């Protein structure tokens, strides 16, 4: 087993499928999945807010289910499929360079301001709408209760969730 040249920590080889491509890196066991995505794979779309599971900014899809990437170790993700915000458009079948329906709805509805929390909302809402394709505004509000936004006051995010449901229906995804 190789060790980190500076700290002497044991390094583990971790291979995961990220946004459809196999990615491999050598990391210490304590590397959080969020840091693995950002630091080791350079996918900085996943944001890290609180790092203890409260803010929801780091939410990614693990085998299609939304999970907190700050509450998983990269070594535990070995062999699983991860979708980050960078992979949402392709996952929805959007053409190269186009946005996915949830991303488009957030723009249409002014569902973001500074944008820090947005990747976590987009992944959470994408998975939510797959199992709840036609939410009421109240249901949409509950669906995003695990994600914190300090700019918008949530009203436009709730609107965006309902708008995304319409776009998905229109696009026949």
């Amino acid at each position, binding site marked *: 087993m190789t060790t980190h040249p500076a700290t002497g*920590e*044991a390094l583990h080889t971790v291979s995961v499928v990220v946004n459809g491509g196999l990615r491999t890196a050598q990391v210490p*066991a304590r590397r*959080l999945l969020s*840091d693995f995505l950002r630091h080791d794979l350079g996918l900085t779309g996943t944001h890290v807010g609180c790092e203890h599971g409260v803010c*929801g900014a780091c939410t990614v899809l693990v085998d299609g289910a*939304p999970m907190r990437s700050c*509450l998983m*170790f990269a070594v*535990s993700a070995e062999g699983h499929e991860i979708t980050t915000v960078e992979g949402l458009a392709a996952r929805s079948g959007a053409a190269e360079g186009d946005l996915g329906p949830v991303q488009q709805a957030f723009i249409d509805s002014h569902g973001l301001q500074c944008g820090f929390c947005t990747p976590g909302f987009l992944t959470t809402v994408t998975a939510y709408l797959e199992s709840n394709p036609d939410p009421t505004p109240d249901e949409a509000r509950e669906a995003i209760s695990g994600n914190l936004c300090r700019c918008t006051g949530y009203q436009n995010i709730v609107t965006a969730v309902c708008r995304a449901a319409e776009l998905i229906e229109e696009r026949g995804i």
Partner: protein
Amino acid sequence: MKPSPFEYHAPRSIDAAVAVLAEVGHDGKVLAGGQSLIPILNMRLASPAHLVDINRVSGLDTVEVTAEHVRIGALVRHAQLEHHDGAYAAQPLLRQALLNVAHPVIRNRGTTVGSIAHADPSGEMPSVLVLTAGVVEATSVRGTREIPAAEFFLGPLESCLAEDEVATAVRFGRFSPGTGTAFQEIARRHGDYALAGMAAVVTVRDGVITEAGASFVSLTATPDILDLSAALAGATPEDADYAAAAALVRDHVDPDADIHASAEYRRMLAGAIAERLLPVAARRGIRQRSEQEATA
């Protein structure tokens, strides 16, 4: 923050997992869903030298429904149990409570057995385990043992699991026909830790309440059962003195104060929840009995 360094173990069997724990003793910690453990590691409130990740152990992710219980393995995620229709039919309190466990995203990863082993007095599932007279199955190199829920919880965040033991499964008990259940908690935001919460169970026979009980979330240091039969038994669900039951609840609970709520406020909430929840459970008891008779 980031966790401090640890040696990572990814055993493929329970035998291999407990062998590591037997060797490292107090320096070892079991990782399943990690939704309580990893925040603690990230904040460096704990820094175990060895982490035993049981996520690759096969055979721990099954839900089994029998005439006596609902048995779930240590890798059953909250979401998996929540959506399991057989488990809901056998013990409705499971889904009723699980809908209150954190947020759906946390429930996708967190395990029900893990949250019981964590023994947080704000946790929902320890209370459900106690109220259903459940059992924890624990394994170590010394063998396996079964621990009744009433003996499992020693204090806040403290269970009777030894440092070399893994909780491999829990069994939630089932109730007799004519028993209704209900669960409610009050939190600042949906999915937050409860300021106060309660699981209620009421048995109705021939239109009359025969037994009633409750267990609590964020209101007692360890989950325990409060017998409410003295206040409710003998009355019909319509005429029962739920205010008297609520008074027993307020006397029983012993909440702490924190930044979110005073102890007195939590005590008041406990009574309010009891008065709201017990009639719901009683009505479900009647309905449950009539459905049983219809299918019999």
